[in-house]
C-alpha cells in the first residue's frame, strides 16, 4: 500500500477510529479558523462580488495591469538568469582552478555576494546607476533589479556548477587524462557538458528564487512588476484582497510549475540510462546552498 509509512503501524479498527476522530477535530478547528477569517473579510466587504468581478468580466484588468506586470517579472527573471549563468559558470570553474591566483579571487567574490542580502545589492545598483550613468529613469529599476539578481545568483550558480562538476565520478577525469586531454579540454569537453545535465534541476529551482526576488524590485525600487500591479489594481477598483489573491495565485502557479518541472527533470536524469546518473537535488533551502542538501539512505518520510 502506498498509503503506509514506516513511522506507524497499519491502523487497526481502533487506530482507524482514532485517526478519523483526529481528522474530524482537525477539520473542525480548520473550519472554525476559516469561518472566522471569512466572517472578518465579509464584515469588511472584501468578499463582495464587485470586488472580484473585474478579474472575470473586465479584460482591461488583465491587459493593463496583470499581463504587463507578469511580462516585466519574466523579463527581469529571464535576463538575470541569462546573464548569471555564464558568469556563474566562469566563477564556478574559477573556484576549481589549480591556480591559487584564480581560485582565491573567484572564491572571495562568490562568498562575498552570497553573504549579502540581494536587496542591498539592488539598492546599491540603483543608486550607482543614478550617480554614475545616464541610464534613463524609466529603465533604471530594471537595470538595478537585474544587476542585483545577477550578482547574487551568479555566485549561487557558481556553487551549483562547482557541485555539479564535483558530483561527477572521478573516472571521467581519469579517463580523459588517460587519453591525453589537457585540463582545459577535460573541463570543456568532458566535465562541463555532463555537469550541465546534473545541474539542470538545480538551475530551474534557482529560477524560482529569482522570480520570487523580482518582487523586491516592485516593492522597494518601483519596478513595475507583478507585485507592483497589486497597488495599481487596488487604486482602480479598491479591491485589495482580490488583487493580492489573484497576483499571489499567479506567482504560486508559475513557481509551482517551475518546481514540478525541476523535480521531473531530476527524476528523469536519475532514472536515465545515459550519462553518469549524477544529479544535483532540487531541494532548495531558499537561497540555495547546493552542499546543504542532506543525503541519506532514505525511506522514512514519503516524498
Amino acid at each position: 500500500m502506498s498509503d503506509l509509512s514506516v513511522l506507524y503501524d497499519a491502523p487497526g479498527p481502533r487506530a482507524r477510529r482514532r485517526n478519523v476522530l483526529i481528522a474530524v477535530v482537525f477539520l473542525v478547528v480548520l473550519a472554525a479558523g476559516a469561518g472566522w477569517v471569512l466572517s472578518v473579510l465579509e464584515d469588511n466587504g472584501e468578499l463582495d462580488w464587485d470586488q472580484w468581478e473585474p478579474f472575470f468580466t473586465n479584460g482591461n484588468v488583465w491587459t493593463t495591469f496583470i499581463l504587463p506586470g507578469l511580462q516585466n517579472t519574466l523579463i527581469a527573471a529571464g535576463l538575470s538568469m541569462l546573464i548569471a549563468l555564464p558568469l556563474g559558470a566562469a566563477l564556478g570553474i574559477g573556484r576549481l582552478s589549480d591556480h591559487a591566483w584564480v581560485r582565491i579571487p573567484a572564491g572571495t567574490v562568490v562568498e562575498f555576494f552570497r553573504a549579502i542580502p540581494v536587496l542591498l545589492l539592488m539598492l546599491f545598483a540603483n543608486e550607482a546607476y543614478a550617480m554614475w550613468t545616464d541610464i534613463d529613469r524609466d529603465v533604471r529599476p530594471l537595470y538595478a533589479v537585474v544587476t542585483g539578481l545577477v550578482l547574487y545568483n551568479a555566485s549561487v550558480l557558481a556553487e551549483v556548477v562547482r557541485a555539479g562538476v564535483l558530483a561527477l565520478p572521478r573516472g571521467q577525469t581519469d579517463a580523459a587524462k588517460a587519453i591525453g586531454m589537457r585540463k582545459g579540454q577535460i573541463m570543456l569537453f568532458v566535465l562541463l557538458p555532463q555537469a550541465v545535465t546534473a545541474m539542470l534541476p538545480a538551475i530551474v529551482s534557482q529560477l524560482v528564487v529569482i522570480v520570487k526576488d523580482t518582487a523586491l524590485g516592485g516593492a522597494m525600487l518601483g519596478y513595475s512588476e507583478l507585485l507592483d500591479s497589486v497597488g495599481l489594481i487596488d487604486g482602480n477598483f479598491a479591491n485589495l484582497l482580490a488583487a493580492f489573491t489573484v497576483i499571489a495565485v499567479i506567482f504560486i502557479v508559475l513557481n509551482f510549475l517551475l518546481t514540478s518541472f525541476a523535480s521531473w527533470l531530476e527524476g528523469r536524469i536519475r532514472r536515465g540510462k545515459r550519462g553518469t546518473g549524477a544529479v544535483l537535488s532540487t531541494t532548495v533551502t531558499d537561497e540555495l546552498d547546493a552542499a546543504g542538501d542532506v543525503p541519506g539512505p532514505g525511506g522514512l518520510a514519503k516524498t
Partner: protein
Amino acid sequence: MFDFLDLDRYDLFGAFWTTVQLTVLSGIGSLIWGTILAAMRVSPVPIMRAFGTVYVHVFRNTPLTLIIVACSQLLAYTLGMTMWADFGTQSLSFRLAVLGFVLYTSTFVCEALRSGINTVPVGQAEAARALGLSFTQVLTLIVLPQAFRAVVAPLANVLIALTKNTTVAAAIGVAEAALLMRDMIEQEAQLVPIAILFAFGFIVLTLPTGLFLGWVAKRAAVKR
C-alpha cells in the same frame, strides 16, 4: 573616508539590532511552526498530511515580499488585525514582519526536517514500533531527535537565508539595516563606503553563525 557616519543622525547599531531581533524571533517561530508542519506531513491522518503539503507549496512559492506587504496592507491596514500594537508604530510593522517571516521560513524548516527524517534508518522506526510505541512516541522520542541532529547544517542555511531575508521588512517600513542603507545612500554622497559598511555588517552577522553552526552540525551529526 567614513566621515558620513554620523551616529547621532543614523542609528546604525539600532538598525542592525532590529535585524538581529527580527532574525532571532522569526527563527524561533519558524522552528516551532516548521516542526509542527513536518509532523503533520508525516502523520497518519490524511487530512493533516494534505494540509501540510498544501501549506508548504503555497507559501514556499509565494514571494516573501508579497507575504510581508500583504501582512501589512491587508491584515493590518484593511482588516484591522494589529496584533496588539497601535497603528503607525514601529512595533506594529515589526510584529507583522515577524509574522510574515514565520509563515514563509517555516516551510523551509519543514522541508529540511522532512529530509532529516529521511536520513534516520528505517530500522530505528521499525524497532520503535516493535516495542509498541505509538506514532507520537516514535516521532518525538526516536525519529525527530535523530532527524534534528542531521539537519543542523541545512537549518543553519535556512537561518542565514532568514538573516538576509529580514531586509525585506524594509518594504513595510521596519527600521532595519536595509531601510537605513537606503536613507543613507540617498542623503550622503558616498555610495561605495556606505555599501561596504552595510555589506560588512551582514557578513559579520552571517559568517560567525555559519561557522559556529557548521561546527555544531559536525558535533551533533549521528555517526553512522
